[in-house]
């Protein structure tokens, strides 16, 4: 039996986002169990633990599940991730944080137990910038970009990157912080209305997203010029603004929508069998797909570990090897029923960060779905790699960590 705890949140201020993610995560493992009899013949158990997006509860969940032979953790919270990094390092568990968490964990030389491929916050900023550059006709010179961000560690992540990019590409960056929870954003949007930026980038979470999109609609900011990071791009965020949100764009590091063969299996083995984690109405949505993506990566890493070590009941340490040598090819994705759902990943000892690429989705209000608005875009590693090296070096120094992989 393989144990992959799901530290989820279905209550609290971010429940609306936590639910579809957790459902996707659970349903994918249920699918593996029901259809394939688990991974490599071992059934997967996914004990769920409610964190309410609260770090203390997150720690409690970690402590209560870790004795159970847990193979990997995916808490979907940057705060909890920071708590867990030292703990998993000491205890020997994998912490997998796709698209969130500590960005510099992409450096496997310092962070042995943490993986955040395929992309991180800084990648996201770079991808969005490149997309906007394309929209602006190839150059952002003299343009103005406003960043509306959640005034927390998470929201502040892209600032450094964007500042570097602004210097290089000659655009002006305007910072507009929004305090938790973000119900009142009049000041920020009046400011946007006045300073008329060409583009607005959003790093938000929870209710802040909905209010921001609504306010942008209200001031008639052109939706195509309003781009959110992947955490600001779920159906929930755009729906409450109605038709006017049409055109709002978000970046994602995986596909979404119902066009993937795997959904047929999920429908058949999970939902119709009455084994779905949720009501079944979230299947194929952005956050559901993301939860499923995380589950898929973890299961592939486990498979890899089984392959490397030659037995099916793998240990947490062996799963770490699986993560580190993960080789997710296009062919494998096709096999999984997820063609072009994600970019191939070839992890190494040093590279825990993946390709750092994403694609843009535009909200189609009429059909109520996300339409792809670009092909895969890769982050500009020349800007991001030095930042990662700097931050991880600082962490290594603070914690007396010797670099690996040399």
């Amino acid at each position, binding site marked *: 039996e393989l144990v992959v705890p799901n530290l989820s949140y279905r209550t609290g201020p971010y429940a609306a986002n936590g639910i579809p993610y957790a459902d996707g995560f659970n349903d994918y493992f249920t699918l593996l169990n029901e259809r394939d009899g688990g991974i490599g013949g071992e059934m997967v158990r996914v004990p769920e633990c409610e964190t309410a997006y609260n770090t203390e509860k997150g720690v409690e969940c970690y402590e209560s599940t870790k004795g159970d032979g847990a193979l990997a953790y995916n808490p979907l919270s940057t705060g909890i991730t920071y708590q867990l990094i030292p703990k998993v390092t000491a205890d020997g568990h994998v912490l997998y944080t796709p698209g969130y968490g500590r960005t510099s964990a992409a450096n496997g030389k310092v962070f042995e137990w943490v993986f955040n491929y395929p992309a991180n916050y800084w990648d996201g900023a770079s991808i969005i910038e490149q997309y906007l550059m394309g929209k602006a006709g190839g150059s952002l010179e003299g343009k103005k970009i406003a960043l509306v961000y959640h005034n927390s560690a998470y929201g502040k992540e892209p600032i450094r990157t964007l500042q570097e990019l602004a210097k290089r590409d000659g655009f002006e960056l305007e910072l507009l912080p929004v305090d938790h929870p973000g*119900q009142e954003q009049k000041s920020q949007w009046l400011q946007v209305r006045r300073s008329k930026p060409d583009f607005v980038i959003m790093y938000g979470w929870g209710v802040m997203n909905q209010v921001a999109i609504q306010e942008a609609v209200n001031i008639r900011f052109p939706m195509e010029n309003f781009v959110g990071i992947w955490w600001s791009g779920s159906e929930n965020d755009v729906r409450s603004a109605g038709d006017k949100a049409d055109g709002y764009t978000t970046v994602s590091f995986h596909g979404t929508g119902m066009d993937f063969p795997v959904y047929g299996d999920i429908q058949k083995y999970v939902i119709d069998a009455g084994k779905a984690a949720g009501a079944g109405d979230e299947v194929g949505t952005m956050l559901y797909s993301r939860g499923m993506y995380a589950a898929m990566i973890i299961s592939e890493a486990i498979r890899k570990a089984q392959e490397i070590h030659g037995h099916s009941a793998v240990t947490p340490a062996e799963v770490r090897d699986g993560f580190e040598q993960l080789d997710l090819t296009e062919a494998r994705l096709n096999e999984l029923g997820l063609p072009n759902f994600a970019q191939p990943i070839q992890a190494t000892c040093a590279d825990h960060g993946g390709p750092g690429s994403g694609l843009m989705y535009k909200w189609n209000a009429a059909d109520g779905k996300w339409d792809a608005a670009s092909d895969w875009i890769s982050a500009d590693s020349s800007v991001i790699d030095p930042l990662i090296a700097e931050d991880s070096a600082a962490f290594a120094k603070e914690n007396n960590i010797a670099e690996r992989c040399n």
Partner: protein
Amino acid sequence: MPDIVLYAAEVTLNGLMAGVLYALVALGFVLIFKASGIFNYAQGVLALFAALTLVGIQKGQVPFAHLLNAMTGKHYTNFPWEVPALVAILLAAGVMVVLAIIIEKLVLKHLVNQAPIILFMATIGMAYFLEGFGDVMWGSDIKTLDVGLPQGINETIDSVTYNMFGYGFFIDNLDIVAAVVAVLLVAALTVFSQYSKQGRALRAVADDHQAALSVGISLRFIWILVWSIAGFVALVAGIMWGSKSGVQFSLSLIALKALPVLMLGGFTSIPGAIVGGLIIGVGEKLFELLIGAPFLGGATENWFAYVLALVFLVFRPQGLFGEKIIERV
């Protein structure tokens, strides 16, 4: 006119509008405080619960669907009907009255004559309970709330001001509706509490539970009455805020925006709620514009509202319109 002045004028107007929205929430607090000396922390959750109920009724959701499904293994979600907005609002108001009756019966009745802080804590307990209850009853996903209120920029104001100053002011239609509703509510409630017999009884209860009992005021009736009204006010606030952000847990946090308003206007004054709201709304927006954003890195609104209220309080410890705190020996 210089640009910054025009802009400041626009920000001020929007501040006024935001203030009205805060006042809507603060009103609920004032009512209950006035009638029982209870600082009702659950007011925010009440607004959430009211909005959830409204949406649930409107969309024909099956209450407790999740619980039922978990127990029976079925898949209930919705009834095959939708309810017109107005009817749904009336039904939701009815639910709030029922809730008031239950709260009186299960909680308040047993806490007559207790210290204010105990009552305050009881309302926090209630807030927890209601939050969980609302989730179980209606689910914790985001719901869009649409009762047909206009939203978005008001074209008339935009074009009029554009013609006058060459700069169109932005005022949200929803805010205008909220302002009208708030003013009506405040006027009605002020008349009720100052000039009616029930209003007088309500203030008596706030002063001294026991003495009120001894002259034959039925605490039960007064409390049900006020909590029902407060529930209705919460419903109105829930509609306004919910239209903007969808209905979800965070809606209950608007209470935090109302507290400085309450403090500044005075816990016991209905007109104080609106005046306090306006001052806070304008104050925090202007501060953010003129000092917060340019010099302090922004996002100052949350604390500034409190600090502003605090400064007022140092000069008037009972708030602008609150009843003077009687200090005698």
